[in-house]
């Protein structure tokens, strides 16, 4: 049956290119190939997010008066609504976790080196977009925790020199976090970010398809002149392995969603006192805790402002990594960038943990 359909299509569309691509696409086989699965797993979770997100749109209402109630309605009245919402929340967190793992694996393996600079750049922007999704989606249930976290988060954006106040008003849709903020975050979360993400993911995947998988520097350097790495066919050998990885992700996701329901909390009240222990989602904790530790003034400048500028510079540095790491681009080992990646990883992990337990 499938053969006949393909033959029918081939007859009309000439699928020669596609057939060549399917037959010839290979994945290099070596000791570090396990890292290749992370990107695909992240992509799988992105699909889960789009799918469950569209389902949630059927019942969610983006207004200060109805947002909390509509989420309550989804998890209590709609059949399997609790499941869809829990999967969306858990999947968001796993997605960001996997995206970070993918990012660090590429960093350590120096897969960004020539000719894959643009793949890296598109990937870094995708990582930022995922954080944007997390930040905007967190507010949508309009509960106490997300309300105050958004106040703090947008307040940090307000600390950016010169454009800070403008950015803060742009994000909040006014001077305070109100229903106007909710409308904006909703639009951002379901329209703007998905549109940009779709385009960037398409570009990211196109680059990967055009260039094939990168071979880690260490493996490449050990090859004798003229020697080629063994390849595994992408269809069906690699894709079946990838699907297995997706199944593992799906199993973890389903277990988390079924046994650890995502709290809805209490409805946001702009005139309530801030509850103690207010903190952002875990992926912003390291940044949050760093800003908390900064003194109020550093060399006559506001501490917060210095912190925000520093994070901006780190983001810029990350985008530029493939252009700065000249040694890796020449195919030489570059221990300095390995060290930087290690320092970054240690900083993120330790500050996330400290931030979690800090008062």
């Amino acid at each position: 049956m499938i053969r006949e359909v393909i033959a029918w299509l081939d007859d009309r569309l000439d699928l020669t290119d596609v057939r060549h691509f399917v037959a010839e696409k290979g994945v290099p086989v070596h000791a570090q190939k396990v890292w290749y699965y992370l990107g695909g797993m992240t992509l799988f979770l992105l699909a889960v997010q789009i799918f469950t997100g569209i389902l949630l749109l059927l019942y969610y209402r983006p207004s200060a008066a109805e947002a909390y109630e509509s989420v309550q309605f989804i998890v209590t009245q709609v059949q399997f609504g609790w499941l869809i919402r829990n999967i969306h929340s858990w999947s968001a967190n796993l997605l960001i976790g996997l995206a970070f793992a993918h990012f660090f694996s590429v960093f350590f393996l120096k897969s960004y080196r020539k000719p894959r600079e643009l793949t890296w750049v598109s990937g870094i922007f995708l990582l930022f977009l995922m954080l944007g999704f997390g930040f905007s989606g967190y507010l949508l249930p309009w509960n106490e925790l997300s309300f105050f976290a958004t106040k703090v988060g947008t307040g940090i954006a307000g600390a950016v020199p010169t454009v800070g106040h403008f950015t803060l008003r742009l994000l909040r849709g006014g001077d305070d976090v109100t229903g106007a903020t909710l409308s904006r975050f909703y639009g951002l979360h379901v329209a703007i970010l998905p549109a940009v993400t779709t385009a960037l993911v398409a570009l990211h995947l196109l680059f990967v398809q055009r260039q094939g998988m990168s071979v880690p520097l260490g493996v490449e350097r050990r090859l004798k002149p003229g020697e080629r790495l063994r390849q595994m066919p992408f269809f069906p050998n690699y894709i079946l392995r990838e699907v297995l990885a997706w199944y593992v992700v799906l199993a973890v996701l389903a277990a988390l969603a079924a046994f650890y329901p995502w709290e809805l909390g209490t409805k946001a009240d702009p005139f309530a006192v801030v509850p103690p222990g207010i903190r952002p989602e875990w992926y912003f904790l390291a940044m949050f805790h760093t800003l908390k530790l900064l003194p109020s003034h550093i060399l006559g400048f506001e501490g917060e402002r210095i912190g925000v500028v520093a994070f901006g510079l780190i983001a810029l540095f990350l985008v530029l990594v493939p252009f700065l790491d000249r040694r890796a681009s020449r195919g030489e080992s570059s221990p300095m960038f390995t060290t930087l990646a290690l320092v970054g990883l240690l900083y993120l992990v330790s500050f996330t943990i400290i931030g979690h337990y800090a008062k």
Partner: protein
Amino acid sequence: MPSDTRPDFDRRTFLDTLLATGFVSTALAVAYPVSRFLIPPASGEPATASAVAGRASSLRPNSAAIFKFGSKPGIVVRTADGELRAFSAVCTHLDCTVQFKADTSQLWCACHNGMYDLGGNVVSGPPPRGLEKFTVNVRGEGDDAEIVVSRT
């Protein structure tokens, strides 16, 4: 060696079947909750038994007013000889809201030109059956008297 190829073929078929069963089961496990999710839960609002359609004194002869009957519109008509009648304002054809036409003293649906008389019966046009009739009572006296419409 033909004796060696047979078991290989069987193993392949077995594994293919196992894999296909796995995929189909996953698809079903996803499709079932999703299909249930798509069906909206029954609304918590109980079926309305009666509603107030406004003041009796504000409705002149040969005129009508739309009122809220639960979540759906109703229409209350005062005929030329002063009698009050009430119907569901939902056209039986395709759920448009009907209106009163003072010139012919008929209820008219603007969507597809459906026409009802003041007994709720279809006069012309596509509606398959007449409008649902409600019972009208007047509660109170004088200018403050309210029109109370209830389902019969």
